[in-house]
C-alpha cells in the first residue's frame, strides 16, 4: 500500500530530525517539505518541541553534590 505524501512525510520525520535517513529518503522528505506548508509546520514544531523538552527537563546539579562526590575519591575496591 502506498502512503499519501503527508503520511509518508510524517513517517520520515523522526529519522529526518535525527539525521538517520538514507540519502534517498532525505531527498524524498525535502521534496515534499518544499511544497507542503502543513508538514513543514509540523517538522518545525517537532524541532522546537525537542529543544523545549531538552531545556525544560534539564535540572542543574544541586550545590553541594559535587563536594559529596569529591569525598568519594580514593574509595577502596573492597570498601
Amino acid at each position, binding site marked *: 500500500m502506498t502512503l499519501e505524501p503527508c503520511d509518508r512525510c510524517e513517517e520520515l520525520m523522526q529519522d529526518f530530525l535525527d539525521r538517520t535517513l538514507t540519502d534517498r529518503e532525505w531527498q524524498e522528505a525535502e521534496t515534499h517539505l518544499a511544497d507542503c506548508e502543513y508538514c513543514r509546520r509540523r517538522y*518545525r514544531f517537532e524541532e522546537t*518541541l525537542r529543544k*523545549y523538552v*531538552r531545556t*525544560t527537563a534539564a535540572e542543574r546539579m544541586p550545590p553541594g553534590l559535587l563536594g*559529596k562526590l569529591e569525598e568519594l*575519591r580514593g574509595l577502596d*575496591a573492597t570498601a
Partner: protein
Amino acid sequence: MGDAEPAPEARRIAAEARDRVRFEEEALGFADQVYRVARRLVGSREEAEDLVQETYARAFRSWRSYTPGTNMRAWLFRILTNLNVDRGRRIQRAPDTQPLVESDYYLANKLASAGGEEVLDQERVVERLSQDSVVRALSDIQPQFRDVVVLVDIGDFTYADAAQILDVPIGTVMSRLHRGRRALKQRLAEEAVA
C-alpha cells in the same frame, strides 16, 4: 646514594596513583550531566542525588575496569542505569506494547485543531506547554521507553551509545525512542488540550 632511582614497585605505585587521580578528575567532569539524566530517571531530587552518589562510589571503586581512551561518559551512564534497575526503582518490566497514539503529528494536530495552525509556531509552543507539564509527561512514560528518551534527547547520546549503556540492540533503542517520543507527545496532548 640518596639519588638512587626509585624501585620499580614504587614507580608502579606512583604511576597508578596518577592514573587514578586522572580517572577521578575526568569522571567528576561529567557529574552535572550524570545528575541531569538521573533526575529524569527517578521521581525526586533526593533519589537522584542518592543515585548519582552511588554511581560515583561504584565508579571510583571499580576504576581499574575502565579502559583509558574509551568512552568514559557511556561507561559512567551504564553504571547509572544498572544501579537504577538494581535499586528496583522501575516498575515491573512491561513488554514493549505501550498503547500508543497513531501518529507522530498527533500533538501538533491536537494543538492546531484547538487553537489554529499558528499555535505550532516556535514562540507559541511555550504558551501551550508548561515546564511542569513536560516534566510530568516525561515521568509518566513507562521506564524502558523513558530511559531511551532521556539518554538520547536529554543526555545527547547517540543510538549506539544508548544501546551500549542499556545493553540492548540498536534497533531496540530506535523502536523504544520512537515509542517513547510518541508517548511523551500523547501525555502532553492530554495536558495541553484537556
